[in-house]
């Protein structure tokens, strides 16, 4: 009842931008909510600013409308179509349970895009290695790189069971393979790709971009270290603000404790001191 409905009396995004600032938290109109798998949901909202500016591995803070849960919920952008932005999330707690109950026509408060993206300027063969709910930034990386003739992308996705994201990444990636726990994990796939020569693209360096559970990312880092492949990892940490003001989201790096939200979420294997 006291829920904010989507009746923007003024456009806070435009006003902020016109004054030379980054948009503050503001409501966005939800255009679609779909269940992808057991407790996995894809939510799309209309936000021209975020749609225009978001880069792969950047995330958005979503806010519940329950004031008992005021903290930001960060989610990686998974796709952008026109001025619509999608995220894919797992229902893990009360906040995501609430988001899963939303429907097209509702509104949701957002802040973003936040964080530093994967570095993908270089012409390369980007191997997009994701596990579980690490898929969103890599779907979006595939989407952004799809337009770039100088690069190649291969998606390597590992799931617990349902392959819920294959259909989102396949239209964008040059190649896509996936696996679930009944068969193995992303390392199984990487080994297979290596054996078949599919990792190697003539004239292009192979760069691994990865996101997923910590043990998976450590395994990927180790795997790439052995082969001396460049490896960028998108990290998660509990956040206070998501925009760099509170130092609540640190990760231990060789340069000390850095903010996942503002120094990351993307760190190189070398920064994390992994797999050496």
């Amino acid at each position: 009842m006291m829920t904010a409905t989507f009746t923007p009396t003024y456009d806070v995004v435009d006003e902020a931008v016109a004054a030379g600032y980054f948009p503050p938290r503001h409501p966005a109109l939800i255009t679609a909510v779909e269940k992808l798998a057991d407790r996995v949901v894809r939510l799309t909202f209309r936000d021209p600013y975020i749609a225009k500016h978001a880069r792969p591995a950047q995330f958005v803070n979503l806010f519940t409308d329950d004031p008992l849960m005021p903290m930001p919920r960060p989610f990686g952008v998974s796709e952008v179509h026109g001025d619509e932005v999608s995220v894919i999330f797992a229902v893990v707690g009360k906040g995501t349970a609430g988001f899963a109950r939303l429907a097209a026509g509702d509104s949701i408060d957002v802040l973003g895009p936040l964080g530093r993206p994967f570095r993908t300027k270089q012409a390369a063969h980007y191997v997009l290695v994701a596990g579980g709910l690490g898929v969103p930034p890599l779907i979006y990386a595939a989407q952004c790189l799809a337009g770039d003739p100088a690069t190649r992308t291969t998606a390597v996705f590992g799931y617990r069971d349902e392959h819920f994201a294959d259909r989102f990444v396949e239209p964008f990636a040059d190649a896509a393979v996936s696996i679930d726990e009944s068969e193995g994990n992303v390392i199984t796939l990487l080994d297979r790709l290596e054996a078949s020569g599919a990792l190697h693209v003539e004239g292009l360096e192979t760069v691994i971009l990865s996101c997923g559970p910590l043990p998976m990312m450590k395994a990927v880092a180790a795997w790439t270290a052995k082969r001396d492949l460049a490896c960028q990892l998108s990290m998660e940490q509990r956040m206070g603000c998501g925009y760099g003001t509170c130092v609540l989201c640190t990760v231990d790096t060789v340069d000390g404790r850095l903010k996942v939200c503002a120094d990351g979420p993307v760190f190189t294997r070398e920064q994390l001191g992994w797999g050496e």
Partner: protein
Amino acid sequence: MGGVNMADVNDKHINLYEAHEWKHPTQVAGVTWKNPVGTASGTFQYAAVRWFYDVSQLGAVSTKGCSPIPWEGNPSPRTAEGPASNINAVGLQNPGVDHYLADDLPKLKKAGATVVANVAGHSDDDYAAVVAKLADSDADMLEINVSCPNVTHGGMSVGTDPVALAKLMDRLRPMTDKPMIIKLTPNVTDITVPARAAVEHGADALSMINTLLGMRIDIRTGEPIIANVTGGVSGPAVLPVGLVAVYRTRTALPEIPIIGIGGVDSGEKALEYLYAGANAVEVGAAALFDPVAPLRVARELDDLLDDRPELAAKLAAGETWR
């Protein structure tokens, strides 16, 4: 069929990006704030906030606790959510006072901000080392944090012990003429005891409250969510505790300037602190949930004070409601 739609029931629209003439300044220990709303230490970093608004528009900005050398703080996870609150266990991570003097402070002054430099320490020597370096700096005021619940030495262990606090004050007071604010913790039985100790030993102002000790447990694992187990609770939930701290301190110490902190996320809540006897307020956790919250609070309060000329006049003159 439709519900009643009364203009006066709806929230007023304030365009934060329009130029605004501040109508109601305040004074804290002789320093003029262009409005009574500052940021609370630890929730404001210039490098992050400058993208969102013009920081010179705030009454003041209280910067992150600053230590003699860089501190790495506590391991992660450092935060959990409470009902209508944030729980933090940063443990005062900061790049140290030299970095502050070389980087943050000059940038803030150049941006036109009124700066409250927040000082952290694990020992009296630490506090003294920082104050020595800030004594001749461009900072407008110093705020000595003797109330952090997330460090094992210094912090709250000083703020809960009036004798230790008096001793620290005696050491720091002669080191600088800058207005010195002592930031107090609510994790005591009677906050007026350390408040009095601070004032009797030379504090120019008090700020309160720092965070309340708290924790959460993950029922999936049965273990504390925060690596450091406990943290400090702040945000809407702590409002009544902050108000009582200000009110009781105002009653016990009628003359001392007080900055009210704790759960402020609207002009109305800021106003409660002013009625409780504060000269100004600071906005903390609310800025984590929306970067522009401090500026919005300032704008809302500026309008609310229009209808309260007696209160506004007192604040402008460096006096308080009670």
